[in-house]
């Protein structure tokens, strides 16, 4: 019995081990961090308001140019960029009479969104408008390299009838940057 115990103890004591540690191996994610500002403002945020707005519009009125600017301040570049619009009209179809007369997406290279390859006259009223933009979100545009912008000029179409007096359209523009 004693012999057995001694043998077991001997085996245990004879097996040496040693350990080393590679510490603090950190696997940290980067991020996409898109922020925007209105033209003429220096405040960058995730939300801006009233980039494009007009009061007291009348048929045929040119409502000028407005723009939002983007910065991807994250740690890696985005690969694609989406633009989507949601409209709410107090009188049905009023968004069809907010005509987009110029739309330019800048991401290091200029993209004319009215070049016939991006926005189309889906509602077949003869011009490109907010309703067309709502029904065809602009998906998978090339992402802003670091900075970018969207410029839009618009007018209240001359054919807007009396039913659109004292009415309004509210549009929300959503911009999505993808990895």
């Amino acid at each position, binding site marked *: 019995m004693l012999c057995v115990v001694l043998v077991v103890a001997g085996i245990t004591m004879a097996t040496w081990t040693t350990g080393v540690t590679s510490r603090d191996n950190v696997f940290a994610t980067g991020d996409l961090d898109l922020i925007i500002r209105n033209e003429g403002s220096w405040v960058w945020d995730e939300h*801006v308001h009233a*980039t494009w707005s007009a009061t*007291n519009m009348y048929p045929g009125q040119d*409502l000028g140019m407005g723009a939002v600017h983007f910065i991807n301040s994250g740690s890696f570049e985005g690969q694609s960029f989406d633009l989507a619009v949601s409209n709410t009209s107090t009188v049905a179809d009023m968004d069809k009479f907010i005509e987009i007369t110029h739309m330019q997406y800048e991401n290091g290279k200029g993209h004319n969104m009215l070049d016939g390859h991006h926005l189309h006259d889906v509602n077949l009223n003869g011009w490109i408008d907010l309703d067309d933009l709502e029904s065809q979100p602009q998906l998978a545009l090339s992402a802003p390299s670091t900075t970018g912008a969207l410029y839009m000029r618009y007018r209240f179409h001359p054919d807007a009838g009396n039913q659109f*007096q004292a009415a309004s359209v509210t549009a929300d523009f959503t911009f999505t940057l*993808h990895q």
Partner: protein
Amino acid sequence: MSKKILLSILVIVVAIGLVGVGTYALWSVKVTSEDNVFASGDLEATVAGGPITVDGMYPGGYGDYTFTVTNAADSAVKTSGLSMTGLFVNNNVPGSPGLLSDVLWVTSVTVDGGANKLPGGNKICLSAFNGTDYLDLGAVTLNPGDSADVVVTIEMDINAEGNMNESVTGDITFQLAQ
């Protein structure tokens, strides 16, 4: 179940899992430009001078009636056109041979003292107005808050033979256009 079948199921499950991983690995970030409001104004008008009441008309008698049409101060736009129409109802005496509105002639319509706006200067009887078709009074520019005086001259036909103690009532509508 054979090993091959089990292996196939395992491969499919792994493949589905990889697709799922691929989908969820894509990151995105959203920003919004909200509350872009496109609000229209309106065009409002008022008219002063009516209703007119003419008593004691007689064949050959006439009168000038002035209506002041105003582009309301809070209208969104100036106007570039003015037109008018009317719709009248005869209050006939039973047995009367004709309608009073057939013998009441609009002989002149002027705006702010200008030329007669009747086409060719030709007079029109009140019954010719149907409440729908408008008489063009020309390019009248009124900024919001501005007014124009429209003078309508009405004459009873000198050859009218009946229509004693009758009357015509109705509405005269003016339309301002952007």
